[in-house]
């Protein structure tokens, strides 16, 4: 019934991810594999731009499952995350019943709170059976939602069911694959983390980052990609307020491609730095000596 079977080992997981262009560290593949086998949500934390969201997308594509995404924000509530009653349609139904002279109240209330008046939001959708197998549910940037919402997630994540007072309990026939990400703009409560497999996604090693750049930026020369990666890796050792993530590296490599750069020069770096550093203080710090030093490190051996 599944479009493609779950990987049978950590190596199979690695192959699955890299076949979709996601070059993961072995540790991340291990945790993902465990989360599939144990039916536990995967909780990913890490700096922005290290590929936390991407893994859910790749997983859905690789397994041939539907991807359901819930982007969290402040004020996210049940009506926009789980379900909502379609009040307009309900009112029309009431008027129609009245016009037809239907006055049985029990009957009416049963008709009104039926599934066809239920507007399903991402979390409820994720519990529905799907021909391709249970969907991948991505709960993105959970730290942006209020604490109260976390408590609501507890029931869903441990029993994969949702209780709707007027309607009853909806239970998933097959548990969805859940990926939760957080940028740590606040701490997520331990009760929620306890139900998940936790993994800290770190910046990739130089070698892996080079492979990522080569696979994601088509047509980039070996020389330039190597310099780009070395430059970014050197930047991360500097004490910046926000170090560039992999997403920034890719953006920057693309920007350099567009500028027809053959190799890194202070001029071309200055023109495209906005793709890499996003804080004015950090950009200001990189002028002058620091830039020379980092650039020298990046271009020395090539």
């Amino acid at each position: 019934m599944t479009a493609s079977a779950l990987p049978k080992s950590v190596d199979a997981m690695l192959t699955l991810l890299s076949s979709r262009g996601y070059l993961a560290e072995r540790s991340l593949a291990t945790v993902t594999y465990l989360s599939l086998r144990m039916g536990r949500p995967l909780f990913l934390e890490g700096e922005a731009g290290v590929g936390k969201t991407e893994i859910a997308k790749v997983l859905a594509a690789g397994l041939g499952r539907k991807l359901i995404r819930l982007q969290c924000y402040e004020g996210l509530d049940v009506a926009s995350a789980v379900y909502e009653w379609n009040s307009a349609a309900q009112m029309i139904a009431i008027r129609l019943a009245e016009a037809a002279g239907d006055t049985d109240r029990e009957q009416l209330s049963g008709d009104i709170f039926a599934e066809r008046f239920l507007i399903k939001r991402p979390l409820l959708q994720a519990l529905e059976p799907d021909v391709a197998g249970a969907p991948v549910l991505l709960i993105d940037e959970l730290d942006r939602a209020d604490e109260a919402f976390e408590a609501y997630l507890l029931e869903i994540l441990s029993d994969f069911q949702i209780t709707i007072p007027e309607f009853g309990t909806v239970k998933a026939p097959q548990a969805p694959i859940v990926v939760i990400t957080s940028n740590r703009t606040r701490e997520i409560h331990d009760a929620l983390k306890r139900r998940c497999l936790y993994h800290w996604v770190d910046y990739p090693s130089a070698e892996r980052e080079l492979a990522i750049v080569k696979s994601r930026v088509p047509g980039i020369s070996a020389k330039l990609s190597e310099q780009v990666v070395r430059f970014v890796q050197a930047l991360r050792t500097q004490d910046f307020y926000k170090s560039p993530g992999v997403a920034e590296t890719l953006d920057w490599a693309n920007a350099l491609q567009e500028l027809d750069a053959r190799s890194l020069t202070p001029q071309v770096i200055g023109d495209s730095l906005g793709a890499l550093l996003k804080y004015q203080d950090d950009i200001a710090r990189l002028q002058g000596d620091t830039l020379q030093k980092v650039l020298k490190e990046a271009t020395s051996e090539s």
Partner: protein
Amino acid sequence: MAASNHLDTPAGQTADNIIGFARALRAAGIPVGPGAVIDAMTAIQLVDIGHRTDVFTTLEAIFVKRHEHAAIFAQAFDLFFRAAEDWKQMLDSVPLPDQAKKKPPPAARRVQEAFSQGRVTETAPAQAEEARVSVSDQEILQKKDFAQMTAAEVAAVTRAIATMTLPQAELRTRRYRPDAKGLRLDMRRTLRGSLRTGGDIVDIHKLGRIEKPAPIVALLDISGSMSEYTRLFLHFLHAITDARKRVSVFLFGTRLTNVTRSLRARDPDEALARCSALVEDWAGGTRIATSLHVFNKLWGRRVLGQGAIALLISDGLEREADSRLAFEMDRLHRSCRRLIWLNPLLRYGGFEPKAQGIKMMLPHVDEFRPVHNLKSIEGLIEALSMPQPHHGLIRSAA
């Protein structure tokens, strides 16, 4: 959990090892519950046990729930599973119940030593004799400087602080709850109510916004020049931690320590003892710029969200005051809703911000208040519970 039921739990050595390892982690200060141990046993069967890094990642994903614990875990793992190829030797290294206390891995020693020390170095006010305070005493206490109090007076003030309550109500959140005076229509309840009468809408139900106290982040200077005050401020911070859910407390002298979790202990003396066990630089020098830098980089984005109010409690006497201090203050100021600087030096009527550090910091605060006696703490509480503008300098008189 249902999905993992078909897997049997492992028996014998592997199980013993996992239990022993969990116990070692607990000793090293990582909270590991029995649920996690069961998970670990299920998980360990899914990976190749001969593959050391896979076993490491597997156990890490289950036992570590905060990034800060990752380093302790790695150390503990190395020590515990030193001879990964030799299972027999591994089994020997399992701390059995009676040995557990004698042989925790060195990673834990630091934590444990620190804990036991904390209770010994515990001093003064807690043991001070019980002094009943009459009404007139109370009045004198209100205005007396903390620095000039006797041990008994300190004890009295501590009790007074403990009884202070923070009035609630503050920031409006974006969440809604039933509210008769609310502005939003609650269609769901209205419809459900109307069904009782067969479809006529009778009652309009409404929703209003939920109001919540703003989170507070306190940065308390514990350097030598502040030593007469730190203890009382800790009591104060403990009192507000108790009353509000979202309070984070950091101590700094030459380094920054997060004591939020320690302050959650119900009993103030226990909470303070736990704090002092964590901190390594009591009454030492001050490096405000460095400490603020660490805070901004590691914690700022994590605790200052949701419109937090930052309380900086310091005398601002910084040796190496330079542009870095101004820079870090500016960053702190821009990342919080409101920055309030509490300075005990402000008690002197003619206090002029002459010290270099104070001059650097002053332009970046929204509010500059004295905190040197009970009265000023009460003033602060009032200030905290008032609906407040976003930024803008208020300088209160001494």
